[in-house]
Every structure is written in structure tokens, then in C-alpha cells.
């Protein structure tokens, strides 16, 4: 008999937590469809009737989708780059023997603790020196070749795969590329998925580097566009929430599709 009230208490706590967790999302969805009058005449947590799409139309007319498109392009390129180059490096560290391996791996690990604020200034100076400020190349280059974190993650995963399979393939004359492509990668889907999710999220959300390195519309990403919008029309919350809705939607969709996978994978390693 004692267990029933205890369980309902747990559910009450969980439901309150869930409500607080989801409230900002709900607020975005509700506010995005209110007009200026409804913004003030209805309670923030209630929907307005009739809903209006004028905010979204207005944002789309002002070219907001271009910036979301730029973010999507940046995210795609950097996620692909991360997956490819990280896999190569992780494979070398996990399976090959070469001079300097331990030292190099240690160097990679050490760079993981370098904070963003430290690299922003010199990266900007490097890009300015090479006249790459406000170019796609300048925006993408620092993150294109794989991160030490990703390499560490993949290397740890590769090392859990028994080497016997590869031995068999190698006896049949398969080279390292074939072994990687045919044997290791198909077995590494969970780790690759984790790496992809983490890269997609961090890239989609990245703000400081795009803010520093880009200044024109062709390279402007959604986060920078939102921040600019905030500075210009900060109190037009209906428009701001429409922009937020567009910027958040892709991440929400990714979450819905990969939901079970994310919970498992986010803590695959205790890093980040």
C-alpha cells in the first residue's frame, strides 16, 4: 500500500520537471503565431485565436531562410569532414604501429582542454593574415579536419572491436582502406552516430566563431542572424519567436528521429 503514494509523488515531480523543460519550446511555438496585439492581450502561456503566420512570412521575406540554409550547409560540410578525417586518424591510433604514436596521441588529448576563448583571437589573426575573413573557407577550416575529441571517441570505440576479423581480411590480402571500410566502419555505426549527433549539435549551435569571422549575408549563419535580430527588434517577441522556431525546428526533428539513440550515446564517453 505504501508504494502507491510514493510512486505518484515521483510522477508529480517528473511531470513538473517535464513541464519546466518543455515550457520554453511551448512558448516559442505559441508566441510565433501571435500578432503584435495578441502578444500583449493574451497570457504568454495561452495560444491566440486566430493564429497568424504573418511573423514567419515576414521573416522569410527578409531572407531569414538564407541564414538557416547557411547553417545547414556549414553543419553538413563540417559533419562530413569530422566523420571522414576523424575515422582515418582514429584508425591509425587504434590499429597501426608507427613511430611517435604515443606522443602524437598525447598531443591530441592535450589540445582538448584548449578553451575556445584562447583560440578565437589567434585564429582570427591567422585568417586576417591570409585574407580569409568573411569567406566560407575561413568559417569552415578550423573545424573541418576532425576534432581531437572525436578522434579520441572513435579510437576508444575501434579498440573495443576484436582484431581477429581484420586479421582474417588481411590474410586475404585486404589493405588498410578495405579493412576500415568493409570491417571496422560497419561495426562502428553506434559510435559514428554519436559523433555525428554531437558534431551536428555543436556546429548548428556555434555562434562565436561565425560572429567573429563573417560579416556579410552570404556567410551569415542562423545564430548570428538571431543575435542581430535581437539587437534590432529585440522587443518584437512575436517576430523573435518566429525566428527561434525556424532555428530550433531542425534540432527538434533530429531529436525526435534519433531520440533513443541520443540518450544512449550522449554519455558513451564521459567527455565533453
Amino acid at each position, binding site marked *: 500500500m505504501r508504494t502507491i503514494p510514493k510512486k505518484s509523488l515521483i510522477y508529480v515531480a517528473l511531470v513538473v520537471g*517535464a513541464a519546466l523543460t518543455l*515550457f520554453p519550446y511551448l512558448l516559442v511555438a505559441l508566441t510565433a503565431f501571435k500578432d503584435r496585439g495578441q502578444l500583449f492581450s493574451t497570457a504568454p502561456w495561452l495560444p491566440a485565436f486566430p493564429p497568424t503566420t504573418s511573423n514567419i512570412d515576414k521573416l522569410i521575406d527578409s531572407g531569414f531562410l538564407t541564414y538557416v540554409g547557411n547553417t545547414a550547409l556549414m553543419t553538413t560540410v563540417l559533419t562530413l569532414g569530422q566523420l571522414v578525417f576523424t575515422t582515418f586518424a582514429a584508425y591509425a591510433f587504434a590499429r597501426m604501429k608507427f613511430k611517435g604514436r604515443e606522443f602524437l596521441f598525447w598531443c591530441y588529448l592535450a589540445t582538448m582542454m584548449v578553451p575556445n576563448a584562447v583560440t578565437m583571437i589567434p585564429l582570427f589573426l591567422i585568417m586576417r593574415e591570409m585574407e580569409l575573413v568573411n569567406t566560407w573557407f575561413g568559417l569552415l577550416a578550423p573545424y573541418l579536419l576532425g576534432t581531437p575529441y572525436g578522434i579520441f571517441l572513435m579510437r*576508444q570505440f575501434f579498440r573495443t572491436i576484436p582484431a581477429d576479423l581484420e586479421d582474417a581480411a588481411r590474410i586475404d590480402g585486404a589493405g588498410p582502406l578495405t579493412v576500415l571500410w568493409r570491417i571496422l566502419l560497419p561495426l562502428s555505426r553506434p559510435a559514428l552516430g554519436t559523433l555525428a549527433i554531437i558534431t551536428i549539435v555543436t556546429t548548428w549551435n556555434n555562434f562565436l566563431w561565425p560572429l567573429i569571422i563573417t560579416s556579410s549575408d552570404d556567410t551569415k549563419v542562423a545564430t548570428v542572424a538571431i*543575435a542581430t535580430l535581437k539587437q534590432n527588434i529585440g522587443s518584437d517577441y512575436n517576430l523573435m519567436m518566429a525566428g527561434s522556431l525556424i532555428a530550433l525546428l531542425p534540432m527538434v526533428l533530429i531529436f525526435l528521429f534519433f531520440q533513443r539513440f541520443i*540518450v544512449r550515446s550522449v554519455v558513451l564517453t564521459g567527455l565533453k
Partner: protein
Amino acid sequence: MKTTTIAKPRETAPDTTGPAPAKRRRKLNLTPYLFLAPSLFGVLAFLLLPVAIVAVVSLFKWELLDSPTFIGLENYRKLAGDGDVRHSLWVTVLYVLLSIPVQTVIALGLALLLNQKIRGVKFFRALFVVPWMATPIVMGVVWTWIFDPANGALNKFLGVFGVDGPNWLSDTAFALPAVAAVQVWQYAGYNMLFFLAGLQGIPGELYDAADTDGASKLRQFVHITLPLLNPTMFFVLVTNIIGSFQVYDTLYVMTEGGPDKSTEVLNFRIVQTAFQEFDFGYASAMAMLLFALILVFTVVQVRFFNRRTTYDIS
């Protein structure tokens, strides 16, 4: 150059030089270096070189388009006596104190709730991780709307109970706690996963034994759960403190460091000095200071862990 010279006995991975290693072993195997080349270039050009540059630039006076002049440790001397920097360090500490304890307690609480055998537990686990994926810039905007003094959800909600809420983001007493609250909202659920993994690693027999001894649930929590969660707790605290040192995006949209510099953390001061005031030399010295702080925490963490801990949830 022999490829086998650095082989260690614990390595089980086979040599990849092919089926006839005796023949091939004599020449340098380039394959590993080719595989590593792109990422190595990335690490050198975009991580190690920048660290070297920031260290060197911190010894120069270098503003906007001027050519740099070597001034030795002058920037660091200025740093030691800079009231703004001291203030921003204090704000950084305050921000950590406002966010980390609350966030950690909530994370642990959620993990304890979600470690029960109840229906829908997987659904709630997933749900609480949702904010982790949210774009901080966007959430900064959304929370600005929530904190809006006249029409925001928070003050409207307080108004229902007859409470007159403050002007959260424009009040020096409330702005920093408000920004810290956003961090708690965003990362408490994510950190719950680590505690959950830690809880699941505690053998159930310990609790069975405690039950037979008649120990209360509270005593079990204090004497079994908390001590055994120590490594997880330590990991969560250190990584989150390091993360908090680097808060930027939410501050940028919510307060821009104000009002009256009350939310100007060191990280914000650095970016401001470099990209608003274009004082690259001085900003680099500040960045070195932040780097040193983070280094201390990282070294503590690595010392404690010895090797990186791996978690998984079943």
C-alpha cells in the same frame, strides 16, 4: 626505421604491414602518417599554433591595424592591476557558484527519480535531455522573453499570486542569477545521464544488505549512494565548472555583460577586448589567464581519474 620498435606488450592490435611483415618491415611504412595527415594538420594549424600565437601576442602591444610592438610582460602587469578584470573574475566565480550547485543537485535528483522501476522512465530520460540540444543563442532570446518585466511569462505567472516580479535582466541583483538559471535549465537533464550511469554502476546487493540491517533510505543514500557516486560527482563538477568559465552565447543576447557590468564574466571581457576594442595583445594576456584557470581544473581532473572514464547506460 623499424615499425615494431615502439610496440608495447599490452597492444593486441596486429601490425598492419601485411601478411609478410619480415620483408616489408625494413622500409618506413607511410600509411599511418597518411591516415593521420589531415587531422594532424588541423591540430597543428588550428589548435597548437593558435596557443603559441596567443602566448606570443600577449607580449606585444597590438591594436587594430597597428603593427605590433614588443612590450615584454607589460600586459600582464596591467592585468594584475586592472579593476575590470578583477571584477570579471569575481563575476565568473559568482556565475559558477550560482549555476553549478543548483544544476548538480537537480541532475542528481532527477537521476534518483529516473533510476526507479516505474513506467515511462525511458520517455522522461529522453525528454530531460532535450534542452542540451537547444541553441544557446536562441534560448537566450527565448528566456529574455520569459524574463520580460511587463509581459514575460515569469512575471505574469508571479502576478497570478499577487507578486510583483522584478525587472530581471536590467537589475544588477537579478541579471546574473537569471542567466545562471538558463544554464541550469539547459544542462541539468544532460548531467542527469551521468548520475544515472553512476547509480546503475552501484551493486544492488549493497542496498539489500543495508535493508536487512534496517538502515533507512536516507542513511543508505548518505552512506552508500553518495560515496559510490564520488567519481561521477567529481567528473560532473569539474567538466561543468570548466564549461561555466566559458559561458558566452546566453550572456551575449540576454545582458551583453550588463547592467553595469554585473554579468561581465572574464570570457566576455576577453572577446570584448579583442573584437570590440581590438586590443589583441591585452586580450591575449587575458586569454592566457583564463587558460591557466582551466588548466588547473583540467590537471586536477586528469590526476584524479588517471585515465578517462567511460560511461554507458543500459
